[in-house]
């Protein structure tokens, strides 16, 4: 055991750090802000493409996919350095971290070139079409139908919560291709361009604001999708979906750590020198927060090592559950402790950081609300508990 990373990994971090120093866009360049998770402003697209070209974007991939064949540990220190600087390498996170990697894992060479690489180079953005009105936690119950028709599929049905769909170029959608087999076995993954006739994206407001348009309802009315857009084998979509969720969870703990660290820093800066810093009840929850953040980091590091040695990805459920609930607890406590000081909803709770999402420096109320995104999206806390109970503790289903 050691508290330090190996010298090889630190050397990679230093190299990346120097690259970021030289290549991170300036405040003046970054004035246009993203409005959804699939709206990447031109300056952000250029930066993402520079990261791709330099092999820093998905470091574990080969150079043609924006990487440098980095080891897991090297990938991790690179992610960690981005996190430490609060630099978003993509303002289309689901495209970069879920959709493109899924296409690289399951797609044809042509799909990689047409869809994955442009997402990685910041030329296209993508949305993830999994959930439906009738299929949330029970994703396998999805009903959007795709029926083979000549050279492709005709899609009918509806998705919901599809983050950024209205700003995206395409949706990686999970659809039912065989209604007559057990539900996991009749699902396929399709790339559906949002410009396809019959596809309608209708954005709607979130808990944070009427005008916070990231959520979408997406309707498919006889939308025709060419057969070449089928990702993976027909009826093998469950495999693609669980691969996708695996990727999603593997990167989540760092962003939860970031949220905890934000509260530590921003709340700390807000109360230092005031009587709240000396208040026993404040100290009690703030002390817990410091311990939670440290524990998440330690467990996260351990999981990187375990993933490298091929452990059950159920380990990721622990990080997701613990990290998201700790972040919720912390944002709630900060809001309540600040009392009337937290009332002003337009106020920033942290210094402006042009490379970060504005929402993370928004009001304490905003941060509190957004903490629910993580306890719900990507498998709720309850679903994570089910997974841990069954896969790790071995309790009966």
């Amino acid at each position: 055991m050691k508290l330090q990373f190996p010298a090889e990994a630190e050397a990679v971090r230093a190299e990346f750090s120097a690259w970021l120093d030289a290549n991170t866009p300036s405040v003046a360049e970054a004035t246009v802000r993203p409005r959804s998770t699939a709206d990447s402003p031109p300056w952000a697209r250029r930066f993402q493409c520079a990261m791709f070209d330099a092999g820093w974007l998905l470091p574990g991939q080969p150079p043609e996919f924006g990487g440098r064949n980095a080891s897991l540990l090297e990938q991790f220190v690179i992610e960690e350095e981005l996190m430490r600087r609060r630099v978003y390498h993509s303002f289309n996170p689901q495209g970069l971290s879920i959709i493109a990697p899924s296409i690289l894992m399951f797609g044809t060479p042509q799909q990689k070139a047409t869809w994955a690489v442009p997402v990685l180079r910041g030329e296209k953005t993508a949305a993830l079409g999994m959930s439906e009105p009738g299929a949330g936690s029970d994703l396998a119950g999805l009903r959007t139908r795709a029926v083979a028709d000549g050279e492709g599929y005709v899609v009918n049905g509806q998705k919901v919560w599809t983050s950024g769909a209205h700003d995206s170029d395409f949706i990686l959608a999970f659809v039912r291709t065989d209604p007559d087999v057990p539900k996991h076995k009749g699902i396929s993954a399709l790339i559906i361009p949002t410009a396809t006739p019959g596809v309608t994206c209708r954005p709607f407001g979130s808990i944070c604001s009427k005008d916070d348009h990231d959520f979408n309802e997406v309707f498919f009315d006889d939308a025709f999708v060419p057969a070449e857009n089928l990702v993976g084998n027909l009826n093998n979509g469950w495999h693609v979906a669980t691969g996708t969720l695996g990727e999603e969870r593997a990167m989540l703990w760092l962003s939860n750590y970031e949220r905890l660290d934000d509260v530590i820093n921003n709340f700390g800066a807000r109360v230092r020198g005031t009587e709240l810093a000396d208040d026993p009840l404040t100290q009690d929850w703030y002390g817990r927060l410091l311990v939670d953040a440290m524990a998440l980091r330690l467990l996260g590091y351990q999981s990187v090592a375990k993933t490298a040695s091929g452990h059950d990805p159920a380990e990721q459920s622990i990080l997701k559950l613990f990290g998201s609930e700790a972040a919720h607890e912390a944002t709630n406590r900060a809001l309540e402790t600040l009392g009337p000081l937290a009332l002003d909803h337009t106020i920033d709770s942290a210094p402006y950081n042009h490379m970060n999402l504005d929402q993370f420096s928004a009001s304490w109320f905003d941060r509190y609300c957004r903490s629910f995104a993580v306890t719900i999206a990507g498998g709720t806390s309850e679903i994570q508990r089910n997974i841990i109970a069954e896969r790790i503790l071995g309790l009966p289903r």
Partner: protein
Amino acid sequence: MELELDDDQRTLQETVRGIIAKECTPAFVRAVIEDGLDPSPWWDTMVGLYWPALAIAEDVGGLGMTWIELAILLEELGHAVDPSPYLATTTQFVPIVRRCGDAAQAARWLGGVAAGGITGALALGEHTVRATADDGGWRLDGSVAYVVDADRADEIAVVATAHDGVGVYVVERASAGAALTIDPIPVFDHTTHIAGLSLEGVVVSGDRRLGGSDLAEGIAVAVEEATLGWSVVTVGACQRILELVVDHVKQRHQFGVPIGSFQAVKHKAVDMYVAIQRARAIAQYAALTFVEDDPRRSIAVSMAKVAAGDCQEVVLRNGVQLFGGMGFTWENDLHIALRRAKLCVTMFGSTIEHRRRVARDALLGEGAA
């Protein structure tokens, strides 16, 4: 960061588990509690295995391993609810001698623990015991409450204040005579010995005053080691309870199904599991800060005590609950581990004190305040 046990450490863990499963069985611990069986043969077994020597330096006859290995052992001893004097000897007496003694004293007492199984205790009497020079030696007067193993340790390191400041005096219990009164406290954890100590003119020779430099720092760090010891033991006791509970809910049926298939049961068990993971990770981190002499050590120790304290709260509450009526019986081993875990949080600073210390360090920059 490399936070995985290496192969040697894993082997040590397996070996220790195997030996404890044979030698310090639940039946043995129960006999100590119910029949007053003397646990010393188990201590002798440990001495024979060089377990007390584990983290003592090689130049004084120890095995020269680190806090990581010590923590592996302590967690397993917590799991077994070890009734021996191991904890106080290795995480209280040994650290104070190592950090405050000179070379000859280290050879004498650390060597004694390593080779001969000398047992030791630590009495923190900085504010309650006075030391006065007495004919080349020292005379100790005062009292210390709640000293672990004071009633059975061979040597008691007493922290006391003299005209020239704080010092540490090693008292041999058997030879102190009537000047030393030891009042064992009937604690709820029947396998941990805790006693009050009163010293009325206890005389120790000059070579029994620890002669190292920077005693205040040495004492502070020794207390941190002791604090970490309690935290690691808590994790072990909690892990035991989780195992008992998981076994139980798999085999106990109600409504025609194992109760472990009920989601309310599953989720409680998962919360226990997560709390243990959190506490173990931080305890290992704190152990590493000792190994690497990392400046975050002192706060890391408080964090470990906090995480252990939080952990036992969840594990005990859910653990008893998931056993139903069986959780309320004397027959169930659960309460034996529960007592140990609860005892740990009462010692060396409450969870709230340590949590506030962690926060004050960050908010007020008070360091070790």
